[in-house]
């Protein structure tokens, strides 16, 4: 190969990511958000710093002083809040989030065993990937973030027939339904779902996402609320839980997503 050692690569490309590499440390950001109480803090830190092996023991310890519900809310989910913040600032990468979520899940499982009856979640979400569409990575990421934010999720998987979605929604009555489509030839399942739900008199925000759809498309059918990134899932669902209907979420979409 030609000798390329003389090339001044500054004229060819710039590694902007290195130029602006974050100088902030995860520890400093965590400190601002984490609970003060030492026991809870320990659990939250296990989540933030992926201490997969310690999380169960520390959760147990915390439960000696706090109710399991409190450990979930004030330690495990709080830890994920830090993670979300770190991800948002580009300090953590996606896989960090996944591993942290695994740690959180471990702790939550343990807490749930100690809760009498069923654990109170913030709300119920059904997720699916459009009929004919095998692309499910985005949906999987979104699900992790929703679970981390304290929602109960039902994952219908991918290539899910329209009729199955309709049946399950009728049966489960979720607070929010989500759909993912990465192919322009499968995304037409969404308006079909929304129309049939409307016919049945069922109404709820139907968050649609995935590479194929855009905001204009999703807003062209009733109930459709667009999501561009998985991280917007908890924010949008949060508004639904605050009692906003799909029309209101849609009309304030820009603000919701930015804020």
């Amino acid at each position, binding site marked *: 190969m030609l000798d390329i050692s003389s090339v001044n690569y500054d004229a*060819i490309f710039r590694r902007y990511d290195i130029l602006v*590499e974050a100088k902030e440390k995860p520890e400093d950001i965590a400190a601002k958000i984490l609970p003060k109480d030492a026991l809870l803090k320990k659990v939250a830190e296990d989540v933030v710093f992926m201490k997969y092996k310690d999380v169960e023991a520390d959760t147990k310890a915390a439960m000696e002083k706090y109710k399991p519900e409190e450990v979930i809310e004030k330690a495990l989910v709080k830890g994920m809040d830090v993670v979300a913040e770190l991800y948002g600032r580009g300090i953590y990468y996606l*896989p960090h989030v996944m591993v942290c979520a695994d740690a959180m899940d471990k702790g939550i499982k343990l807490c749930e065993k100690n809760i009498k009856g069923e654990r109170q979640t913030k709300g119920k979400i059904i997720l699916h990937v459009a009929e004919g569409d095998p692309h499910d*990575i985005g949906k999987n*990421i979104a699900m992790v973030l929703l679970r981390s934010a304290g929602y109960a999720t039902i994952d219908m998987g991918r290539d899910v027939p329209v009729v199955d979605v309709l049946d399950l929604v009728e049966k489960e009555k979720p607070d929010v339904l989500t759909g993912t489509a990465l192919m322009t030839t499968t*995304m037409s399942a969404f308006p079909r779902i929304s129309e049939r739900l409307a016919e049945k008199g069922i109404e709820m925000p139907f968050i649609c996402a995935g590479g194929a759809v855009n905001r204009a498309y999703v807003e062209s059918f009733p109930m459709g609320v667009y999501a561009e990134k998985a991280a917007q899932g908890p924010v949008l669902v949060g508004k639904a839980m605050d009692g906003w209907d799909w029309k209101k979420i849609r009309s304030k979409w820009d603000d919701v997503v930015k804020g």
Partner: protein
Amino acid sequence: MAIKRFTKMEYKSADDMVFGEAKYPLTYGLGQKIGAGTVVPEINFAPRPGAEKNPATLTREYVDYITKDILDRAVTLGFPAVQLENEWIHQMGNDPEKFAKPVVAGQKALMQKYHDEYGIALSIRHTCADPRLAEKGLRPGMDKTHMYPEKTIESFEVAAENGADVLSVETMGGKEVSDYAILHQDIKGWLFGIGYLGSMDMEWIWPQIVEVAKKNKIIAGGDTNCAGANTSMFMAGGYLDKDIPRTFSAVTRCIASARTLVAYECGATGPDKDCGYEGPILKSISGKPSAQEGKGAQDAHADLMGNLIAQVCDLWSNESVEYHPEFGGSSVACWLGVIGYEAALMNTAKQLKQDKLLRDLYAATDSYRSPEGFCLRYDNAYKIGQAIVEEGNDIYLRSRAAGLKAAELIAESNAKGGLKLSKHEKDMLNKITTDLKALPDSASKFEEQCLKEYKNVPMFNPKNYGL
């Protein structure tokens, strides 16, 4: 059919590889020659949303609009040869007789007309869908809901019998594990999913594709690890993306090359699929023609090696564009212009015996833009090929070797100040090296470990791979 492993390189040296020439060139279709001294543009397209409504609307979209526009533009600009690629949409694979047959036949009839009228060399690749779902079952008889395994095989038959010149597919074996591995940055899981399970799945499907091609006297092209390595690459993204580090995607790509090679070992002849960026490694090992995409496939992918990846291609592709109007004509016509002119530049360089120089300019441009591009630079690709064939008979060992060699090359360049890695990329690279080195040194031990370690991965079912 027996699987013939690659245990030595078909090229004597990296420098012998150049675009527009393959050790085993091909002749097929309507006067088409691939790898025989010229680079041919390969144009790929997707129908407008809604066109899939019924077979008539779909055929009209594919034939009367898309194919016609492509052929008109090719003649308008004077391109001597064009290959079309039709990546099947779900509806075609789900009901090949009804949705695919009229499309395949209609396209070929129109191509024949232009070939007769203008003498333009033409061919079409049908990339059938692989809709098989791990959770339902990858082998015949398992998926009672959709019968996807059966339909996948039927797809090749319908394509072959009605006008396809080349058969390709993006197989999905091991994807459920590799998806999990990407999201958890777990190189071992990746190696298991793609290097091991993926290879086994290809060993099951590819002999069947080769059989269908033979029966119909057409070409069994090749595969791509789009499902795995491209997912990895796009999530690694560019300098604004923070999903996964680019060192991870670089290593996954190289491991994937050991998998995609299986198609050739089962009797496929190339050209491989454009979206298989592992193409340069495959070509170095096998000598078969390669389809690639980069600068001219921005309609679909913004990769970090737009020029580099043209270095040893035989077909130059746009990956895929949805049919729609542009100021310059329809989208397919516009993108054909982009890739056709690039092919013309390469062909001129060949005529003037400056092809190796142009190859090196392509390569130099993106040498250090990303670790993945760096690994695929033809000299490094060759080294990775060598690492693979040294362990050629063992799908596990060769995949691991590919990964280790990639990690080694990246670390070396970073130390010398060629590649410049971010902190996060460096950390990941170190972890990858440690993890790969810690792996057992036999496939059986590896399999045993992994079946245990990954048994709870969602949708993973060992039976899909005969395990």
